[in-house]
C-alpha cells in the first residue's frame, strides 16, 4: 500500500512540476477558436485554415478547441480558453454554439466574443458579443451564372430543349440561410438562361453523405440536368460525377474528386473578418455588432472554374462580378422574380430571433430585397416562382 502511495505521489509531483514550467509569456494577444468538428469537415476546415492564416498574418497566438458540440460543452470550452489559456477573443463557428457562447459572454465582459452565422447579437444587449457572416448570396449568384451558361450550352448543342432546363438543388433545411442560398443561385442562372426552373430537395441534416447522394440521384432521375447543393459532404458531387451531370459545389473545389463535372464553387473566406476582429481588439476599438463581408473585401470567394464550363464563362463571370462590386447588379432585385405571378413591393422578414419565427422587419427598399443588412445572417426566405420544393418535411 505504501508503495502504491509513493508511486501516486511521484506521479502527482511530476504533473505539478511539469505544469509550472512555461506559460509565462508576455501580454501578447491570444485568440481562442471553438470549432464544431475538425479539419475532416469541409465546413470547419474552411474556418480552421482561415484562422491559421489570419493569426499568422496578424502575429497573434491561436488557440483552438475542436469537436465542440452545440451544448454546454461550448460554454465550457469558452471558459477554458479564457481562464486556462488567457484568450482575449473567443470565436465559435457553428450556429448552435450561440446560446452557450452568450452565456459565457455575459460572465466575461472583458473578453470579446465573435460568432459566425448567429442571429442574436443585435438583440442580446451585450457589448462584447458580435455576429458575423458574409454576403455569400453574391457568390451563389455568380455560381448560378456559371450554371446558366452551362445550361445555355446544352440547349444550343441540342442535348436539351429550353423548357427542359431544370436544375436540382440539395438543401439541408427550409431555413433562411439555405433558401437565400438556393434562390440567389437560381436567380444567377436565370439572369443568363431565362427558361430555367429548379427542384429543391431537403435532407434534414447539415452533413449526411448518404442522404445527400440519394437526394442528388433522385433529382437527376427527376430530370434535373445540373445539380448544386448546400450541405457539407461529398455526397451530391460524387453522385453527379457518377451520373455525368454538371455540379456546382460549395465550401471549396471538388475538382480533384469530380474532374468531369465540376463547374465552380463559392465559399466564405473568413480571413478578412478574423483580421478585422483582431485589429479592432488590438486598437481597443469596438467590433461591429453585425459584420457581413462581401466580394469587395474578399469575404466572398470563388474557386477556379472547372474544365467542364461552357465557352465564354470566364468573361461573363468577370462582367457580372464587376457589376456586383459597383452595385449595378443587385442579386435580390424584385424586378427579376415573382411570387405567385406577382412582383413583390414589400416583405416582412424574421430578423429578430424568437421561437415562433415571427416576421418583424421590412426588408424591401427601392425595389431591392436587402439581404444581410439588418443583421449579418441571411433572412431571405421568400418562395419565388420557378423553384419547386419537392419535400418540405424539414
Amino acid at each position, binding site marked *: 500500500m505504501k508503495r502504491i502511495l509513493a508511486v501516486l505521489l511521484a506521479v502527482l509531483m511530476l504533473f505539478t512540476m511539469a*505544469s509550472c514550467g512555461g506559460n509565462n509569456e508576455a501580454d501578447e494577444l491570444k485568440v481562442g477558436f471553438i470549432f464544431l468538428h475538425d479539419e475532416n469537415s469541409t465546413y470547419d476546415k474552411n474556418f480552421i485554415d482561415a484562422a491559421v492564416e489570419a493569426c499568422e498574418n496578424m502575429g497573434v497566438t491561436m488557440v483552438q478547441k475542436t469537436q465542440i458540440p452545440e451544448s454546454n460543452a461550448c460554454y465550457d470550452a469558452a471558459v477554458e480558453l479564457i481562464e486556462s489559456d488567457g484568450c482575449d477573443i473567443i470565436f465559435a463557428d457553428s450556429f448552435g454554439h450561440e446560446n452557450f457562447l452568450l452565456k459565457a459572454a455575459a460572465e466575461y465582459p472583458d473578453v470579446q466574443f465573435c460568432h459566425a452565422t448567429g442571429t442574436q447579437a443585435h438583440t442580446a444587449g451585450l457589448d462584447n458579443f458580435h455576429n458575423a457572416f458574409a454576403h455569400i448570396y453574391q457568390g451563389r449568384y455568380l455560381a448560378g451564372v456559371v450554371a446558366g451558361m452551362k445550361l445555355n450550352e446544352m440547349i444550343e448543342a441540342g442535348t436539351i430543349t429550353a423548357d427542359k432546363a431544370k436544375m436540382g438543388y440539395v438543401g439541408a433545411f427550409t431555413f433562411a440561410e439555405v433558401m437565400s442560398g438556393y434562390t440567389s443561385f437560381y436567380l444567377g442562372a436565370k439572369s443568363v438562361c431565362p427558361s430555367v426552373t429548379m427542384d429543391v430537395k431537403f435532407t434534414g441534416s447539415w452533413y449526411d453523405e448518404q442522404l445527400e447522394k440519394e437526394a442528388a440521384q433522385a433529382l437527376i432521375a427527376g430530370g434535373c440536368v445540373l445539380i448544386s447543393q448546400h450541405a457539407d459532404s461529398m455526397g451530391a458531387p460524387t453522385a453527379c460525377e457518377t451520373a455525368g451531370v454538371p455540379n456546382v459545389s460549395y465550401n471549396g473545389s471538388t475538382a480533384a474528386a469530380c474532374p468531369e463535372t465540376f463547374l465552380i464553387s463559392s465559399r466564405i473566406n473568413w480571413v478578412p473578418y478574423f483580421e478585422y476582429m483582431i485589429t479592432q481588439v488590438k486598437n481597443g476599438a469596438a467590433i461591429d455588432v453585425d459584420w457581413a463581408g462581401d466580394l469587395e473585401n474578399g469575404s466572398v470567394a470563388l474557386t477556379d472554374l472547372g474544365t467542364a464550363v461552357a465557352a465564354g464563362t470566364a468573361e461573363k463571370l468577370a462582367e457580372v462580378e464587376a457589376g456586383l462590386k459597383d452595385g449595378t447588379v443587385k442579386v435580390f432585385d424584385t424586378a427579376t422574380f415573382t411570387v405567385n405571378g406577382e412582383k413583390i413591393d414589400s416583405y416582412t422578414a424574421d430578423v429578430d430571433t424568437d421561437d415562433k419565427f415571427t416576421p418583424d422587419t421590412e426588408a424591401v427598399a427601392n425595389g431591392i430585397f436587402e439581404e444581410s443588412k439588418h443583421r449579418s445572417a441571411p433572412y431571405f426566405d421568400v418562395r419565388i416562382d420557378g423553384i419547386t420544393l419537392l419535400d418540405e418535411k424539414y
Partner: protein
Amino acid sequence: MSQNTKKHHEPLIHIVKRDDMVWWQAWGIRLAAIVLGVLLIGIVSAVLTGESFFEVYGIMFRGVFGRIFEGKTSMLWKFGQDTVILLCLGLAVAPAFKMKFWNCGAEGQALIGGLAAMFCMIQFGGKLPEWMLVPLVIVSSIIAGAIWGLIPAIFKARWNTNETLFTLMMNYVATQIIAYYVYIVGGGSNVINPVETGALPVIGKSQYLLNILIVAALTVAMHVYLKYSKQGYEITVVGESQNTARYIGINVKKVVLRTMMLSGAVCGIAGMLLVAGTDHSINKDTVGGQGFTAIMVAWLGQFNPFVMVLMSALIIFLRTGAAKVADSNMLNSSFADISVGLVILMLVGCEFFIQYSVRLRRAKKGVEA
C-alpha cells in the same frame, strides 16, 4: 506405473489459471497497467508533437485543471461535472452488466430521459409553478428512461431476443426521435434555445455543484443496493448462473425486468442532469457517446461504485488532457480517443495477467525430482 518415465514435451511457456491473487496484488497490476498506458501516451505524444516528454504531461494537466494554482477553479468544476455525468451512466449500466445483461443502450436511455425533461420544461413552463415543475421534470425523465430500458428487457424475457442488438438499436430510435423533436421546436435552425423554466436550481458557487452532489448520493445508494440489499444479491446470483438462481427460487425474469428498469431510470437521471441541470436544451449530441464509454467505466470498476469514481475521473482526465495536447499542436482530435484507447487497452490486457500466470519451462532437474 514405472512407465511414467515417458518424456514430457514441455512447451516453453505455460499459461496457468490462478486464483491465488490477493486483491491488492490485482490492483497493483492494474495500477501498473495505467502507469504504463500513461507513459505510452507521453511517448506517442512526444514523438508526434515534438514536445518534450514531461511537457506533454504539463499540457495535459493544464488542459484538465487550468490555472488551478492561481486560484481559478472553473476547470476543476468542469472536470467534476464531466466525471459525474460519465459516472452516473456507469452506475446505470453496472447492475445490468453485473447481471450479464448487456445493456448497450445507456446512450438512448439517457437521451430519452433528457427528452422527457425538455418536453416538460417547454410544455409546462410558465403554466405550472416551479415547485411543481421541477419535480415533474425529474420524475418524468426517470420514468422515460426506465421505460426505454424496460422495452428490450421485456423482449428478452418473453422471446429471448438478443439484448445487445436490441439496446443498440434503441439508441438509434432515440437519436432520431430527438432529431425530430428538435426540428419540431427549433425548425430549420436545428437548435432549441435554452429554456429556463423547470431547470434545476443552481446551488453554491458553481452551476455544476448540484449535479456532483446528486451523483455522489447516487454512488453511495448504488453501492448499498448492490452490496447489501436482497435485490442486489439476486442480481449477483443471476449474473453468476441463471440455473442456480432458479434453483434457489429466484424469479429470473422478474429480476431482469426490474434491473433493466433501474438501469434505464438511472440513465434517465443522467439525461435529466444534462438537460435540466446543465444545457437547458437538447440535441442528439447531448449525451455525446458517453453511454458507451460508461460501459468501460462499469467494467474497469468491477461494478464497484467507488472504484468507478476513480475510473471515470481517469478517463475524463485522459480524454480532456489528450484533447488539449492535440489542440495545442494542431493534431487531429481523434488523438484524444487514441490516448484513452491506449490506457483502456492496457487495463483490459492486464486482466489476463490477473486471471492467469505465465510460467517459463522449468529446468530439467526440477522435472526429474
